[in-house]
């Protein structure tokens, strides 16, 4: 299965679990649309469970990845129709290092949005229906960095796998 075709917008999975120098890696390239993101998340979660990451932490990882990948679909590729997304995850001791790349539009202002918590002390009609994404990403990740190189967005962060809880 390692020789899967790299055809146009094909899915190229390179999933290595096991004692490969102590490092475990998950790699995937998939189309930047909502349904492909859903399928990619499903595969990634299966791989993380095989890496024996606890359920509570795969939950955190899934929340973060869903937000990051949906942002690429909804913002970076909003006007292009579609493009591909590359996801690379490496386990390094007690953390998971993530790299997400796409060829869409840059982040507004060249940086990742701040993502503040909403004021929920409002009437029901004024409750927010969106804008939770970056807040969740910032709450649940560490070492967030964003780089634009050429036409490519490159987002990196890590999620600790220690017993530290976020809630």
């Amino acid at each position, binding site marked *: 299965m390692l020789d899967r075709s790299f055809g146009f917008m094909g899915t190229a999975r390179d999933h290595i679990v096991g004692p490969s120098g102590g490092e475990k890696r998950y790699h995937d390239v998939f189309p930047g649309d909502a349904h492909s993101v*859903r399928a990619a998340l499903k595969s990634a979660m299966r791989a993380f469970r095989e890496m024996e990451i606890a359920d509570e932490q795969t939950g955190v990882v899934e929340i973060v990845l*869903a937000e990051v990948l949906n942002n690429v679909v909804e913002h970076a590729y909003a006007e292009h129709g579609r493009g591909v997304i590359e996801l690379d995850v490496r386990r390094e001791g007690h953390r998971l290092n993530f790299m997400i790349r796409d060829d869409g539009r840059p982040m507004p202002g060249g940086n990742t949005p701040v993502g503040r918590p909403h004021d929920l002390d409002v009437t029901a*009609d004024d*409750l927010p229906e969106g804008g939770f994404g970056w807040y969740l990403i910032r709450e649940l990740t560490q070492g967030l960095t964003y780089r634009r190189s050429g036409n490519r967005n490159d987002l990196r962060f890590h999620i600790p796998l220690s017993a530290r809880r976020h809630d």
Partner: protein
Amino acid sequence: MELVCHDSTELRVIEVAESRIDAAVAIQFKDRMRTLSDDGPMRVILDLSRVTFLDSSGLGAVVAAMKQMGSGRRLELAGLTPTVAKVFRLTRMDTVFTIHPDLAPFEAGLGHAR
């Protein structure tokens, strides 16, 4: 997006018969909820016990579903699984909704009519 209604005289339970409410189905969910909360009992409980994952688009759709309920109607939630509960807690949306651990207190009145 499969949503199943269970009605009693005072209560409508809308069961989400899917494992995810995410960006791929958020709009569909919101539209189906509009149809299902247009008539019937004034009190509506959304049963999320089969939903294992909800992202911010899904959360937005649940909030939208509550906001689009007709006047006097209420939307409550039940059966949040761990990752779904975490999203509600982190965004503090758990303070906005009435959340029941499960449907046990309501089951007698509902029977199993589908």
